[in-house]
Structure formats: structure tokens, C-alpha cells
């Protein structure tokens, strides 16, 4: 089927365009990747790097087969298995036949199309958004997509990175492009200094609690301000990762020395002359003074406390010293709010401190990196896991797992009664056996507290690795600042 549509070349090719316009970081990267603008339609956006996993890709590969076409640029496509993989005994055959079939399909599809595949047991295997940065697939100024909403993680490097659906995965596989209307622009500034015990996760949950889960819908967010500037790359990844939880298409941060230092000499990072050339481009990646945003917010980092969620979406979070808001004090429908609290078994006006918990999960693309395990270990060091708590410690990748061992964290964790599992998405979405049972409470460092997200009937409290550690050793919701002795 062929249909023609009038199109005009992008204005961006006109050099005057650049002189006149003050551009945001987002504009600079987006505009550079526009192949064509469709009149009264979306932009044809070129995608530099495409990451693929087992769950959202099989139907896309099937689509290629039905159209009898191949992957256009296999060298720009990277596949890893993460969503439904077990976190114990990965060397054994997978028990669940449906999961096994899906992994098998990815392996076959990757082989058939010449795509590099980091499957189960591969030394580079891990969560797609953890391994991307680890091996330099993630670069500043790049466009990166994946059939996963937390693709926004890669924005920490100054990339435009966003999640797509399976039809779009098929588009990118077949043409390396995607049709997208250019989103609106939002800047979120966080200035000041974070208190001890307050982490990037708390910053993100704080912002989402202020903006709600739909506050940034239709926008691409740039994070700026002293707090972001002072954050490590791992921390920036956590903040960008959670952009989707306020509805944003993605989030990004201007690259700086920290960014360049992080990516230098990684496997898929350019080298030599290519590095120098890339640096010329990357160093221009910042928002011009006076560039316009559709929306802008300012927050004071000093005001942020360790955060915890009490409801069934990531916007239902609060500082640990606060009480659960009353229905009349929140924006939105009271019946939906009440339904959410009923599901959690909580009441308006209650404190979260001292609430019983059953499970603790540290891991996921949000908080499954080495820094998160360092935070967790700092709190549990010299303490014991509460007997009734089941703790799942799941590194984001084999590289993280290795660092946990090499830095001596594993010995401390063992001494405190914790075991480390093998990498994967695990209990974040509970596609594998890591399911929180009906009615049980889990303090989780992951990204979503939706009903049943961690298993049918499970109840999730989202928090930082420090908050998770405090819960794991006390068996209750505990302000991690009361346990800080470092």
C-alpha cells in the first residue's frame, strides 16, 4: 500500500534558523534528528540507538516478517533480556514455558537480524536501562528509544530518550525512524542543598507528589539547578527515570564534565577523532539563555525529606514526617482517592511511620545501580534484617553485581542477613516468580505502586534505598535519618 503526502524539508536546514532561535537543550537534540516534517503532522525523527527487550519486541519482529522486510540498521539496535527473567538459578533452564518462549523468540530474532544480544547468563546482561549507560550505548545528544516507558533514564546524559509502543518498535526496526509530534517543553529547577538521608529518589518522588502523575503529560522535561548539578550520574539517572511517572514523555539533563567522564572509554563510546568530533557537538548541549519553556517550576532542595508513598500511584507520596492527606485537600476525585487508600488499608490523616511491612525490594531501573546498593548497605551495616521481612536484593546488571562483590558490600550484606539475587527487572513488575503475595506490604525502590504491580493484591510503598534499608532492619516504616551514623 502506498500513499503520498506533501512534505517539506525541515526548516532546521536553514542556517538562519539557528541564528534567530534561542534553543533549549531539548530543541537542539530534537531538531538535529528531524529527517522530515510532515505538514500538519508529526516529525519524522531519526533514532540513533534502539534498545530491545523480550516483552515488547516479539510482535514487532513478527510485523517485519509479515511485511517481508529486515531490520534497517542492526548495528544501531541492542537487545537484552530482563523483564521476565528469573533472579535465582539463571544457569538452569527457565521453568515458566511462556517466559522461556519469549526469551527464545528474542534470541532467534536477534540472530536472524544480526542484532547484538545480551541474553540470560551473558556477562553484559542486565536491565536494559542499566546496561545502556554501562557500555556507552547511551550518549549525550543522541535519540534513544525502547519499548519501555522508563527509557527516560538515558536522558541523564543529555539524550532524548523515551518509551514507545510495539508498533513504534516495529517502525524503528524497519526504518530507524519514528513519527512523533514535537512535545512541549518544561523545565524543573531544584536549587539549594539536600539534607543528609535525602537521595535523588526522594527528589523525584517529591516532584511527582507536587505535579501529580499527569502534571507533565505532553511535555519533555529538562531538570536543572544546583541539586541536579551536584548529583552523580547514577542519581541523575534515577531522577530522569521517574519522569514518566508524572506523565512526561521524557526527562533530560545537560551534559557536563561528570557526564563526559562517565562515558569516556566505554565499549560503545566513540574514540579518538570520533570522540573529539562528538565533544564539539556535546559541549553545545545546554539551554540557551532566554530560551522559552511552555512551563517552568522551581523547588527548594532544602525542603525535601525522605519520601514514601501511601497510595496506588507514584504521585501519592509525602515526606516521612507528614500525615496522609485528607481527600478534601487533594486535587482530583475523592472516590478514586478513597478507593486507593482502601486498597492500601490506610486512612486519611495517619502517619506512615511504624506501619508494618512484609517485603523489601531493592533493584529495578530506578534504583538498581551500585550507588543504590552503597546507600542500602550503609544503613544495614552492623544491624540485622528483621526476621519477618523477606528481602529481595536484585542488582540491575552483572556489572553492578560484580561491583557489589568487589567493593565488599556483599560481605556486609551477608553479615546482616541479606542475600543477593541475579540481575533483572524482578519484583518491579513481577513478571517472574518474584511476586509479593496478596495483601502484603512491600517497601520498594522501584517506580510504580499501582494496584497489583508487584503481584496480584500486593501493596507497594515506593521509597529510596535508604528508606528500604531502614524498613528491612526495623520491620516497619522508619525514617532512615534516625539510623544514619555515617
Amino acid at each position, binding site marked *: 500500500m502506498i500513499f503520498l503526502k506533501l512534505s517539506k524539508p525541515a526548516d532546521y536546514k536553514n542556517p538562519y534558523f539557528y541564528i534567530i532561535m534561542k534553543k533549549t537543550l531539548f530543541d537542539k537534540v530534537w531538531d538535529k534528528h528531524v529527517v522530515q516534517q510532515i505538514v500538519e503532522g508529526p516529525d519524522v525523527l531519526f533514532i540513533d540507538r534502539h534498545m530491545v527487550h523480550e516483552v515488547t519486541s*516479539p510482535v514487532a519482529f513478527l510485523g517485519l516478517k509479515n511485511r517481508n522486510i529486515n531490520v534497517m540498521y542492526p548495528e544501531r539496535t541492542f537487545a537484552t533480556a530482563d523483564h521476565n527473567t528469573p533472579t535465582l538459578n539463571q544457569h538452569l533452564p527457565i521453568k515458566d514455558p511462556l517466559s522461556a518462549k519469549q526469551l527464545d523468540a528474542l534470541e532467534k530474532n536477534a540472530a536472524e537480524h544480526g542484532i547484538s544480544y545480551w541474553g540470560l547468563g551473558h556477562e553484559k546482561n542486565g536491565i536494559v536501562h542499566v546496561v545502556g549507560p554501562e557500555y556507552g550505548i547511551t550518549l549525550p545528544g543522541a535519540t534513544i528509544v525502547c519499548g519501555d516507558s522508563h527509557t527516560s533514564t538515558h536522558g541523564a546524559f543529555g539524550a532524548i530518550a523515551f518509551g514507545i*509502543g*510495539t508498533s513504534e518498535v516495529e517502525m524503528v526496526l524497519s526504518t530507524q525512524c519514528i513519527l512523533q509530534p514535537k512535545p512541549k517543553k518544561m523545565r524543573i529547577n531544584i536549587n539549594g542543598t539536600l539534607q543528609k538521608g535525602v537521595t535523588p529518589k526522594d527528589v523525584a518522588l517529591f516532584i511527582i507528589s507536587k505535579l501529580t502523575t*499527569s502534571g507533565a*503529560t505532553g511535555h519533555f522535561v529538562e531538570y536543572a539547578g544546583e541539586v541536579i548539578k551536584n548529583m552523580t550520574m547514577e542519581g541523575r539517572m534515577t531522577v530522569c527515570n521517574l519522569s514518566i511517572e508524572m506523565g512526561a514523555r521524557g526527562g533530560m539533563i545537560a551534559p557536563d564534565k561528570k557526564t563526559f567522564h562517565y562515558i569516556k572509554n566505554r565499549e560503545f563510546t566513540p574514540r579518538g577523532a570520533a570522540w573529539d568530533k562528538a565533544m564539539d557537538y556535546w559541549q553545545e548541549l545546554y539551554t540557551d539563555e532566554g530560551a522559552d519553556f511552555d512551563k517552568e517550576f522551581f523547588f527548594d532542595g532544602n525542603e525535601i525529606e525522605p519520601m514514601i508513598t501511601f497510595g496506588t500511584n507514584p504521585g501519592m507520596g509525602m515526606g516521612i514526617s507528614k500525615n496522609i492527606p485528607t481527600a478534601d485537600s487533594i486535587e482530583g476525585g475523592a472516590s478514586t482517592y478513597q478507593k486507593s487508600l482502601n486498597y492500601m488499608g490506610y486512612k486519611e490523616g495517619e502517619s506512615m511511620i511504624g506501619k508494618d511491612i512484609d517485603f523489601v525490594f531493592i533493584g529495578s531501573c530506578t534504583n538498581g545501580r551500585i550507588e543504590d546498593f552503597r546507600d542500602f548497605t550503609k544503613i544495614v551495616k552492623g544491624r540485622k534484617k528483621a526476621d519477618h521481612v523477606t528481602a529481595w536484593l536484585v542488582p540491575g546488571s552483572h556489572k553492578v553485581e560484580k561491583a557489589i562483590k568487589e567493593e565488599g558490600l556483599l560481605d556486609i550484606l551477608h553479615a546482616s542477613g541479606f542475600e543477593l539475587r541475579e540481575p533483572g527487572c524482578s519484583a518491579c513488575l513481577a513478571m517472574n516468580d518474584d511476586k509479593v503475595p496478596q495483601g502484603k506490604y512491600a517497601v520498594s525502590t522501584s517506580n510504580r505502586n499501582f494496584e497489583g504491580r508487584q503481584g496480584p493484591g500486593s501493596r507497594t510503598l515506593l521509597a529510596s534505598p535508604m528508606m528500604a534499608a531502614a524498613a528491612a532492619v526495623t520491620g516497619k516504616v522508619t525514617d532512615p535519618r534516625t539510623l544514619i551514623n555515617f
Partner: protein
Amino acid sequence: MAYDKFDILNSSAVPLPIENVDTDQIIPARFLKATERIGFGENLFRDWRYNNDNTPKEDFVLNNSTYSGKILVGAKNFGSGSSREHAAWAIYDYGFRCVISSFFADIFRNNCLNIGVLPVQISPGFLEHIFAIIDEDPRSTLTVDLPNQKVTIDKTGSSEGFEINPYKKENMTNGFDDIDYLLNIKKDIKDFAQDTPL
């Protein structure tokens, strides 16, 4: 994948007046293990629709035979969360061709448009009105007119316009998808790629 053309849809509607319905509710992750796009409708709203022993939950709207139709009417921020296109597939496979809400999450909206489910965004006031009309008479029908970009409550004749990108509108009315378009400009893409280092 090509889908049925969308023109004018006249149907009764199923109301779901809950805000922030996320894609984990529309289809829980444990039902995403298929390698083909088959049978997702069975698990649409799985955990709201069925008990643990797979018996239907009586009070959920999809289990109430009073309500039926090809239009799902949701509340604010419908389709938030995960990018899983399976959510849109489940809605389509169940038999819905249109979702009406006062606000949609971005990725879900895109996914719907890509597979032939029309997301129709209307004002909060008109949405309330539709919920009230369905509440009064569950057999009330709505007319979703894509060519004229208008939703009408047939009984009262009251209507409201809705926005859709002209390109996407053309796709929906013809049953085209984006890949058809992109494959058509493959040469331009190749030229562009040459100037864009990996």
C-alpha cells in the same frame, strides 16, 4: 499492522468513572508473555474483573450485562504508566474501537492511534454529562464522528468537538499505519543516516 478503517461509530458505551487508570490495571504484566498479538481481550482489566479463583467480580462493569458497546468511557488520566501496547491491544481485542476521556497519557494515546482505537479527549464537563446519561439509561448511544471530529449524545443531541492530528486522522480513516509512510521515504532516511554517526 493494518487495521479496520474508522469512520463514524454509533454505539452504546461502557462507563469506567475511575481516574488515573494505569496500563497495569488494563492488562497486568503477567499477561504480557505472548509472542503473538492474540487473546489479550480475555485479560482486559483482569484483576478488577476476576477474583483469584477466576470467578467474575460481580460489581465490575465488564461483568454487568446492562452495559455493553464499542465505546469505553474512562475518567481523567486514562492509560498512565507503562508503555505496553498490549493495553491498547486488549481494549481492541475485547471489542472496543474508541476510548473517551477528559485526559489521556501520551504513550497510551499514541499506541491507540497506531492500532486503530480512537482516543477521544473531551472536556471534563461533557465527560460528566456522558457518565450521567449512561447512568440514567445504560442503553444510551453515542455517535463518534471522526470525519467531523465530533461526539454526540444521540438522546439529547448535545455534542462536543475533539482534536486529532490531521495526519493521524487520515491514517485512521484509511486504515494506514506509520510504517507504510516511513517505508515510502526510505531513501531520505538512508541519506540522513549517512550523515549521522552511530
